[in-house]
């Protein structure tokens, strides 16, 4: 039987492998450098999407598949964005309710690191 599978030059895998290392190191540095707030969150998301994109497109060969398969697999997860937005919206409301009615206090700062000694 003829091969129906995906065959590509091996060098492209080495390139992506290297890139994934670089992006992982970069996202780790975001934490190591102690960036906070929107800078931290956007950097984390950017590196995450880059890594996920390269894994799906190259390692999982999605960019070489037929459009019919790409759309069937890549479109449905869009529904998850709706779920995330709905839950985020609802979460703010729940949090405020807890502060107002349950007498919960707003946490001032993250607690100190656990002691190992």
């Amino acid at each position, binding site marked *: *039987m*003829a*091969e*129906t*599978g*995906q*065959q590509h030059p*091996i060098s492209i*895998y*080495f390139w992506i*492998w290297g890139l*994934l*290392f670089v992006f*992982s190191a970069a*996202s*780790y540095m975001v*934490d*190591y450098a102690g960036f906070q707030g929107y800078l*931290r*969150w956007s950097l*984390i*998301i950017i590196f*995450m999407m880059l*890594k*996920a994109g390269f*894994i*799906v497109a*190259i*390692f*999982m*060969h999605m960019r070489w*598949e*037929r*459009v*019919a*398969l790409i*759309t*069937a*697999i890549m479109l*449905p*997860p869009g529904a998850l964005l709706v*779920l*995330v937005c709905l839950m985020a919206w*609802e*979460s*703010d409301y729940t*949090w405020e309710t*807890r*502060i107002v009615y349950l007498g*919960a*206090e*707003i*946490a*001032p*700062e*993250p*607690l100190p*690191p*656990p002691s*190992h000694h």
Partner: protein
Amino acid sequence: MAEATSTQRLQLVEDWAADVAVFRGVPWGKAMMWIFLLSDTFIFSCFLTSYMTVRMTSAEAWPNPSEVFALEAFGVPVPLLLIAIMTFILISSSGTMAMAVNMGYRRKRVGAALLMVVTALFGASFVGMQAFEWYKLIVEEGVRPWGNPMGAAQFGSCFFMITGFHGLHVSAGVVYLLIVAYRVWRGRYEEKGYDIVEITGLYWHFVDLVWVFIFAFFYLW
């Protein structure tokens, strides 16, 4: 460029409208693996979305993962040290898996089988480190699904559910890889072709893919 896009659009319509199998030229096993992975995407997304909800609604401070998962190296605490090592191990295993797929299609079955075994070994070491991480968190830090000394009580349940479910996927993947590697090595697919290595690879890369999101949202956020 615009021409290529319109051809692709035409191809999409034709594929879906042709009254024959939609995914032309795609082996059945591969199409089914993709659909399974799609369903798994929804499961993991539900876990991560509930984690988001629980973390956003908690009036108590969320424990700082950067400090909770710090390890001491040469006397200084390094944030997320073990997690970083685990991340690089999983990426490397994805690399060796991609090589195995390539070897399979080039009909170098011993090479493909060996690379799959290397991939499985990376995976097993990942699970081993995760077991160490769980041990440290449960025994030394006193984290439980219902509470912990560092902050919001929901931290433990989110952590154990998300990393536990992912670890289960890695463990199953190790077994899956070893079985297919053995069969490849024995020459079972010489006639049928080596699509099976690519299909196994899809599952393995997916496990790596999920870790990318867990690493970003649970450990770094």
